[in-house]
């Protein structure tokens, strides 16, 4: 029987050295993937993945551990990403409340195509992977992170909102915009055939 995360955490706190190693084996791939979605840099993603586990390891004995392990671990990784992005940009960024900003993006929100074919309808299967890779790669990092949390990690708007201190509706607006940008990016990669 596969032990739950909570069982492994409890065993780790009782001094079982194998328990934390099992948590590492369980979540390294997913955490790396999430961080890579944001940074787009393999070496950095490896560093942040390792650092996330080290921080979790150091914090576990001090934590009143009532939260599920996976979201807690992933939030450590996401926080590392956000700190990194903040250092790069030398300014606060990411996921501010969008209530006002939404007003200025009406054109994007209204950019849904009517009867035009989907961008992917015109992409050959063999080109599909490259088109998608490029389209996702050109999205802003915060868009990639939002989409990864939603579609890779299958988190609800409310769960994502808890991480970023945003209302669920605001998270929905972020994700909507990110998807629209993905559509635009894919269309541009194809040569702007959509619009």
């Amino acid at each position: 029987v596969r032990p739950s995360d909570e069982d492994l955490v409890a065993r780790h706190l009782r001094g079982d050295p194998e328990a934390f190693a099992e948590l590492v084996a369980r979540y390294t791939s997913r955490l790396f993937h999430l961080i890579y979605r944001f940074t787009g840099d393999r070496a950095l993603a490896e560093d942040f993945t390792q650092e996330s586990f080290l921080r979790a390891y150091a914090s576990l004995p001090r934590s009143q551990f009532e939260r599920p392990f996976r979201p807690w671990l992933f939030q450590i990784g996401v926080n590392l990403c956000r700190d990194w992005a903040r250092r790069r940009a030398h300014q606060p960024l990411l996921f501010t409340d969008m209530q006002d900003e939404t007003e200025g993006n009406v054109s994007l929100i209204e950019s849904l195509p009517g009867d035009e074919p989907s961008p992917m309808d015109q992409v050959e299967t063999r080109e599909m992977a490259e088109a998608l890779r490029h389209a996702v790669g050109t999205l802003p990092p915060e868009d990639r992170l939002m989409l990864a949390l939603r579609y890779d990690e299958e988190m609800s708007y409310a769960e994502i909102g808890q991480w970023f201190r945003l209302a669920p509706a605001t998270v929905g607006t972020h994700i909507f915009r990110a998807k629209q940008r993905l559509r635009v990016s894919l269309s541009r990669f194809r040569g702007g055939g959509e619009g």
Partner: protein
Amino acid sequence: MSEHPDLLTLDAFSEGEMTPEELRRTEAHLAVCPTCRRHVLHLREPADWFRRAPYEMARVGLVNQIVEAVSEQRLASRRARRLGRAASAAALSGAALLAVSWSELGAAVTAAGVPVDANTWNVTVARLLEVPVDTATGVLNGTLAWQAGLAESAGAGLVLGMVLLTAAAFVGLTRLLQAGASRGVSA
């Protein structure tokens, strides 16, 4: 037909992120509106694209690398805990030695009949070393300044070392004074 929902509402529908009331209203509209149904299909596409987008897999050795790093951290924290315990024990021992030797030194100074004034230490050291008082004062001041400088720039470990060294020096000094006092008494 009811008024068309806006795209954010249709997107929330496509994502399954609606209250029961919103869901009921939107479903009722979609049932009679092919345009909005088409919008919903379009809105679902990017999520599917994103899921299908190829991505980098974690390197095979990454798990082992992290497990090893965690093990090293575990060993390092154990070493740090051991060192902390040893440092605490040494500090306590040093403090005890200092207290004992301080009282022994006072007794020895009294027994030696050294007058207690501002220059007591300098005079005592000068007598013991058989050097002029000015020389002893210079040596003592220099030593104290050196210790203070080290304590400012160094960590707790070095300060601890200085405490132990000072305690040992006091013990040695006490022995010398006691020997001097014995010579004075016998003389």
